[in-house]
């Protein structure tokens, strides 16, 4: 059976098709134009592999943190597929996905243009406290503790989520972390 992985949390758009738990094929686009390409790339990924939505037995979506709009696009598409086709949906943050690569308590970070999103995880890869965002300037304080990373290990993500609970699509929300102007 097939599992679809969707990640649109920042400028890279990544769609991965797992077959029986192994990466089978993927589509990647780097220019940040998620709204224009997500659905066409998904169509291509499924068609080229002769896979239909009914062949999917799971969806994994990265729900942030990163670009507000970027994350939303992936989350909306994942929610819609899961809801309409009754496909179990699993959600993971990109920071948690990165933490899977480190077999110890760790702080991991991902950069955007102005700063770094940070999350602290215990040995079981569970979040400790809340995610936070530090500007590039303030990050100097953290740089000895935080592992900056970019690439998740997809096999590890699949394995980690295998036994985790599904989330009902109605309740899936992006993680935003950064404050918006009106809330400051």
């Amino acid at each position, binding site marked *: 059976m097939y599992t679809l992985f969707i990640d649109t949390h920042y400028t890279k758009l990544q769609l991965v098709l797992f077959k029986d738990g192994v990466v089978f094929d993927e589509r990647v686009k780097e220019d940040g134009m998620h*709204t*224009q*390409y*997500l*659905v*066409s790339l*998904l*169509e291509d990924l499924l068609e080229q592999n002769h896979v239909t*939505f009914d062949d999917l037995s799971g969806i994994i979506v990265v729900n942030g943190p990163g670009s*507000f*709009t970027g994350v*939303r*696009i992936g*989350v*909306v*598409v994942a*929610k*819609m*597929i899961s*809801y*309409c*086709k009754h496909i179990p949906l699993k959600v993971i943050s990109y920071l948690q996905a990165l933490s899977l690569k480190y077999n110890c308590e760790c702080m991991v970070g991902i950069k955007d243009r102005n700063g770094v999103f940070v999350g602290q995880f215990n040995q079981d890869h569970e979040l400790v406290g809340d995610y936070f965002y530090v500007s590039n300037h303030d990050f100097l304080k953290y740089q000895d503790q935080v592992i900056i990373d970019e690439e998740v290990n997809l096999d590890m993500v699949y394995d980690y989520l295998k036994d985790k609970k599904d989330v009902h*699509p*109605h309740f899936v*929300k*992006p993680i*935003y972390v950064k404050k*918006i102007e*009106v809330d400051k």
Partner: protein
Amino acid sequence: MDTYILAIESSCDETSMAVVKNGSEVIALSITTQMDTHAKYGGVVPEIASRMHTEAITLVLEDCLEKAQMKIEDMSAIAVTYAPGLTGSLMVGVEAAKILSLMYHKPLIAVNHLIGHIYANNLENKMEFPLLALIVSGGHTELLVMEDDYQFKRLGETMDDAIGEAYDKVARVIGLPYPGGPNIEKLAQMGEHTYDFPHPVLDDTYHFSYSGLKSAVINLVHNETQRGNRIRKEDLARSFQDVAIDELVRKVEKALKETGIKRLVIAGGVSANQYLKREMKELCEKYEAELLIPRMLYCTDNAAMIGAAAYPKYLKHEFSSYTLNVSSSADIV
């Protein structure tokens, strides 16, 4: 065979879906509004609007299909507002529509929100052509001639602010809560025409302008406050509304006279204004013209009007690809 269109609207602060039969019959309409949330901030906060659309999207779909007692498989096409509006909000609806189209092999139809407001009239009475269409909303003030479905010719439009925008700004200046337009209208009913504001474009064109009128109101409030004079808000609202609406009446009258067209359609959020309706009704009676204004539910943002506007495009097979993008602005003509 009957055509059923599932339509999605998310251009501002309402998440809405509808099933519309043959472009005219509303089988189901589901709307969730974020108005109370945005009222706290005194206006729509785009980022919050996008977030709330994301949270609501599958819930609204579920509600709409339940009301319709239909499945997506029963639909002939999926329609969606792609412009104009808040880009982040539009994207939520457009992504949802695209993935529905792909999953169920249904054609995707991109609809302009303003054209949707015009076609809201088809949900009540079938529009006949030619007709004059006056679009009055928070973002638009425009007078058009329609010779046929999707055949638009622009007579005139605002050179600066839209009428709805002027209503909202005046409301803010006199301390009325969001949404300003309906609150100004309520106050105006209790006021007298006391203050003489200049008529914006006293010329022989079809152009509109509301920024001058808005500034005149703001200046008056400012000056009177500095002099320590009390302003009767009701009278101010009435004086403003009289000029704002009269501007529309004059231009529409000119159009009725010059084009000889006997049908007027009013569309957009401001068409919910009762004073505007009364004035236009009188005008149309004078020229023996037919006046079409959708009922309140279809005047404000809703997906049923998008389903109505998608129908002529469905008949002509004007479908969109999955690379469809949203746009904050879009002209009808």
